[in-house]
């Protein structure tokens, strides 16, 4: 991530051409994955569940202190990787064409991966908060974790279909 690192993608793979393109390369996937995880962490939860449906609260006052600290770190990392992902995308774009389908596949994978993490670690293991209150949680948890696994599978499929070397449009 340092300035030296910014150029290091150039060295891997095809050699040090000044205009190294990242068509289907690792930087595209990293950008999409970080952005996907980031928007799932920082925006989906905030806009849909806090402000939209109002199923979660700002803070449910029952969270253990360790979990509150962990939540603060997830929150900070969420915003950080959202911005990081977008700057990586800008970097790929200034070096050449962006493989948009591959990037979109990585975003879907990222959203799925974070939602899975959120549903299992945050909701169940750490107990930071639940999806909804005063209801039977099982169907909600199953829908959340199942949905996350589905997104993860779809994202992985897109990444497989757009892998480098395969002739795609």
């Amino acid at each position, binding site marked *: *991530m*340092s*300035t030296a*690192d*910014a*150029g290091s993608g*150039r060295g891997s793979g095809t050699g040090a051409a*000044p*205009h*190294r393109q990242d068509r289907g390369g690792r930087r595209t996937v990293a950008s999409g994955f970080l952005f996907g995880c980031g928007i799932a962490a920082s925006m989906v939860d905030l806009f849909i569940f806090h402000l939209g449906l109002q199923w979660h609260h*700002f*803070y449910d*006052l029952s969270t253990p202190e360790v979990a*509150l*600290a962990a*939540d*603060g*770190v997830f*929150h*900070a*990392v969420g*915003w*950080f990787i959202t*911005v*990081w992902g977008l*700057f990586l995308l*800008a*970097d790929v*774009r*200034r*070096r050449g064409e962006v493989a948009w389908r591959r990037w979109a596949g990585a975003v879907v994978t990222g959203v799925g991966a974070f939602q899975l993490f959120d549903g299992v670690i945050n909701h169940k293991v750490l107990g930071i908060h639940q999806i909804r209150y005063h209801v039977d949680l099982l169907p909600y948890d199953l829908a959340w974790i199942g949905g996350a696994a589905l997104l993860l599978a779809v994202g992985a499929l897109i990444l497989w279909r757009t892998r480098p070397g395969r002739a795609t449009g």
Partner: protein
Amino acid sequence: MGHRHGTGHGTGPPDAPGMADGLGWAVADGAVVLLLAGASVGYAVALRASSARSPWPAGRTLCWYAGLGCVGAALLGPVAEAARASFTAHMLGHLLLGMIGPLLLVMSAPVTLALRALPATAARSLTRLLRGRYVRVLTHPVVAAALNAGGLWLLYTTPLYPLTHGSVLAHSLVHAHVLLAGYLFAAAMVGPDPDPHRASMPVRSAVLIAFIAAHSVLAKWLYAHPPAGVGRADGEAGAQLMYYGGDTVDVVLIVLLFSRWYAAGRPRGLDPARSAAGR
């Protein structure tokens, strides 16, 4: 000091200040006015002294005066007045004084301007000072973040917060600390001024994440445990303002951090004008 207990008592002034006390507050306000006026004139004088050099970006000048405006709004006038009785108004003042104001001041590159404006010998002395051990320690991201976030934790989790309402000295020291620590932190993270000891991108990233985490955890903790003398509704509103307002500034800090990384990582063969124009 005699702070209020609960909002039920918060209709009148916190306590009837004596003559000497009223004088103390007036002196503190006067000092703020003088400092702001000095900073306004100083930047203008430096601009004039360096006008023979390459043009100075207008955005930087705008940042300086907008930053001073934020500091002034936090310390004088209606927000400062309301902050004596309302935690939410206090928090708005702190966003202006500790986050938005210092970031704007940092982005106006005052040190760069001073180096342009000062005569060569004075500029060399300033450079020597900036390279010195004290500045090196203070502008290290870990130290700057600890001063900034640590000061907030002390203020809100100890009796310091009610004390600032009763004592001119405590009030002035806390507000000076909030402004200076905010400036140091923004400068260490994203400052455009020359920084001979600039920390690496991974170090600054890790510190920024830790700072944002500490800020958001403190806001949630305050939501549940408002400082002594703050009512429940006021405490909850103030804590949410701290959380979402702080988040907004934090996202701006992250964007500024990465825009420097982006500019530094420009591939060879791409000139800045082309990449800035989005190819």
